[in-house]
């Protein structure tokens, strides 16, 4: 339990960064995890290829919400091309906690929504 609910996960869950909505985002995408109903919306503002503003909104468990919050910090300033190369490993490293196969879907939902928004609905990042 200490493992899964480390202080920094709970901190991002309690005090989510960049939560809310942007005015006139360049990219906006919303999706749900079909296995549990967690929802995430991701919004980006771009300058050329570069993320200059980002927001997320959503309902869900500590893992999916903390993952979304951390992800917004992670991608701010990155280019879309850099984001395209992000995968499961990056999210696991970002969260820094051991995650089983079912919970993995919670953790990856924000990245999936982000990628779907940027390039159309793709595979669940595996």
């Amino acid at each position, binding site marked *: *339990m200490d493992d*899964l*609910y480390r202080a920094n996960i*709970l901190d991002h869950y309690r005090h989510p960064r960049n939560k809310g909505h942007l005015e006139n985002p360049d990219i906006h995408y919303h999706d749900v995890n079909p296995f*549990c109903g967690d*929802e995430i919306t991701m919004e980006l503002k771009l300058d050329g290829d570069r993320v200059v503003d980002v927001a997320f909104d959503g309902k869900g468990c*500590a893992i*999916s919400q903390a993952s979304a919050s951390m992800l917004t910090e992670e991608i701010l300033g990155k280019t879309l091309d850099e984001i395209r190369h992000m995968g499961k490993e990056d999210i696991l490293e970002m969260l820094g906690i051991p995650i089983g196969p079912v*919970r993995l879907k919670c953790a990856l939902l924000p990245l999936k929504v982000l990628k779907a928004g940027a390039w159309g609905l793709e595979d669940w990042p595996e």
Partner: protein
Amino acid sequence: MAISTLPEPPVKTMPSVAEIRADFPILDIEVHGHPLVYLDNTASSQKPIQVIEAMNRYYREQHANVHRGIHYLSETATSAYEDARRRIARFIHAGSTKEVIFTRNTTESLNLVAYSWGRANLGPGDEVLITEMEHHSNIVPWQIICEITGATLRYVPITDRGELDYEALDALLTERTKVFAFTAMSNVLGTINPVEELVAKAHAVGAIAVVDAAQSAPHMTTDVQALDADFLAFSSHKMLGPTGIGVLYGKRDLLEAMPPFMGGGDMIREVKMSGSRWNDLPYKFEAGTPAIAEAIGLAAAVDYLSNLGMDWVLQHERELTEYAWERLHEIEGLRILGPGPERRGGLLAFVLGDIHPHDVAAILDMEGVAVRAGHHCAQPIHDHFCIPATSRASFYIYNTREEVDKLVNALYKAKAVFAF
């Protein structure tokens, strides 16, 4: 063969819960250093050695394909398979083995009715009535078949107490209603619906009644003749039996009149290149090699249940549920969905403050306590209560009061982690 001529099931003995637990090898495992407390029985039950061994023995001594073989093993397998059908028919008090069709699960059983009966009998202007408390498996097949046939799908709303809104039901059931499909027990609210009464209401307007018994068949007596159900569906894996098999009971005259669902081996009487003639019941609806070992496993499961007696099963679960209802209500901020323990089955879906059910389940898991979290394949119920998900603890014959206590203790831990 008439079921009434069959020998009675073996004499009931009443083992203690400790003796029952000894039949379930999985209950001995440890999870994260704690003894397993398995409270996810609504999703799927565990299996006693009697069931595991029946299938084991089948593969080691009796397996061959059924029905078409004249050799010893094929005759043995055929007898075992058809004997399993008889025992399962008796368990639900079916009038004939012809009315018992093996499918993969409740979901396939309901799809079979929707596709086969629905395609032949539904059209524009007709209505299919279901309820807001259905599992997706009793919603989506009707959405699909209504789209194919042009019929209209309507929902009986539920009250905030988690019961059917009977006034609305009476208004919605009209002579346009061709099917009334409803669950015998909600897998989220726990609500036990008055099946006999609902069937009678359907019949009063000339509709057929389709009963989703996925949650009732494992936990209480099922008497399809007393209920007068037209179709009734359930899954093996939720009632001590193996995965990979389910049952559709159907009244014989309805089944006779229906076109087949899937085509293939065994379901035909004669195949000419110009067309085919269908086989007798129940084979008309069992295309291809069936789940033979699984039927034998399910028969061992219903024997196990019959031996305990379904009254004992219901009583045991009710006692646990009453106890759990009290203990859970001690926890501040915990809210249980659905009616009181006297009108529900052995399951409790709840929210704990604003801690997300996934987080509740994850923390409980660290304590060895297995509960389910999510929408439990019943989004409309959750939409009704405006919550995305719940945690659900559910009981079966092997659960104990001590396990309820462990659940409660683990819930206090969850509160502590998220106390902010």
